[in-house]
């Protein structure tokens, strides 16, 4: 058996379709991760509640609606409130550089812009994992 990387893929907000989220979910699966796919229109509360129940290692949240400066801080605050601040948040979507910088200052691990090849977040996650889960338990 042994530990698998569990990652929640969410697309909050009322915008658009979930094609992008499904593409990234499939890429994560093909990288060997267990992907919890939560569908469209998730609120930060729903995202964090799902992340806690699913005991994920990483939350991958893509925001295209421009609401990233409210959604990410809210997710980070809720994680802290639920005692899950150790869960790692990464983001994607259309996010201006200066906002991305601010979000990373608040604790978002990385932001991947539109058109980033899926190998980039996958490599990032694997690196993060290596750094944080070296101890083996069985």
């Amino acid at each position, binding site marked *: *058996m*042994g*530990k*698998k990387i*569990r990652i929640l893929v969410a697309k909050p907000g009322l915008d658009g379709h979930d094609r992008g989220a499904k593409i990234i*979910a*499939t890429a*994560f*699966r*093909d*990288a*060997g*991760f*267990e*992907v*919890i*796919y*939560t*569908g469209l229109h998730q*609120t930060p*509360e*729903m995202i964090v*509640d*799902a992340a*806690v*129940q*699913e*005991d994920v290692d990483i939350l991958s949240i893509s925001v295209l609606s421009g609401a990233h400066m409210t959604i990410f801080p809210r997710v980070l605050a809720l994680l802290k409130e*639920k*005692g*899950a601040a150790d869960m790692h948040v990464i983001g994607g979507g259309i996010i201006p550089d200066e906002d991305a910088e601010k979000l990373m200052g608040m604790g978002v691990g990385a932001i991947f812009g539109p058109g980033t090849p899926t190998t980039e977040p996958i490599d990032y996650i694997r690196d993060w994992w290596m750094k944080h889960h070296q101890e083996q*338990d*069985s």
Partner: protein
Amino acid sequence: MTAADPARERARQEARALADRLAHGERRAIAQAISHVEDGTRVGRHFLDLVYERTGRARRVGITGPPGAGKSTLVHVLACLLRREGMRVGVLAVDPTSPFSGGAILGDRVRMPSATGDDGLFVRSMAARGNLGGVAATTYEASEVLEAAGFDWILIETVGVGQSELEVVELADTTVLLLVPESGDAVQVMKAGIMEAADIFVVNKFDREGGDRLITHIETALQLADWNREGGWRPPVCPVIATREEGVDEVRQEIGRHLAWLSGDRERLQRVRRDKIERRVRVLLRRALVEGAWAMAHIEERLQAEIGRIAAREVSPYRWVEKILRGWRYRTG
């Protein structure tokens, strides 16, 4: 070697802390305990041992059927209904693991929007991780975690299954089989096994053409099946439109009737559960024996050292297996 093993002691302590947090209703502790159990860690084993006496009171219902039949939708509606009755509900939803990458997409939550902000409902997705029975190898243990956390009902949604993946029957008190009008012809060729495994039949998507015909098929198949279910439980067939929440009340009633039938005869319930636990213990022991023996006899290294010669037809696999076994017998005296 036993008393002073620090890793073991640390695992015990961690398990105890986890069990305490669980007893205080901390949702993250439930989730972490399930992860430990799922990953087969030492902490997970200690944890299960600690909470075992607190389990065995919940009602476990298995929901199975082909992909897309509406299992998640039904589980969601059923869970909401039970919540309105004041029951605490735990859900385990299993999806397949990709045999190529070992990864999985677990998408059942999409149909379970109610799982937010309600402490009486807990939904956990599980990947089958190579187990072929329609559930994960650790779904049983995960349901014990939920029981220990005080959930009254455990709903277990299987991978969308064919006809032979019926392990859920071993986990559940009551097994619900979902079919859809399009399954009509499949029912005629269904093996007796699946007809006997289901305690309740649901014909979902009854808003579509062919539902009545499917009910007739099922009834006919049930008559043909050999009725030696003792005490004569006759599986009901319920028409349902899960997306409109129609017919789910009846499913709830039938589950209640089945449980009442099971426990109407104290001996029957005890025997059924005892038999299931005995089979479970066998599974656990077999798994532990294989893993233990595998490691102890350095099978992996020896296999790697020999596989080239076996593949080259220089040594037969039969002789090699014999040799390993002989060495093992000698070792264990």
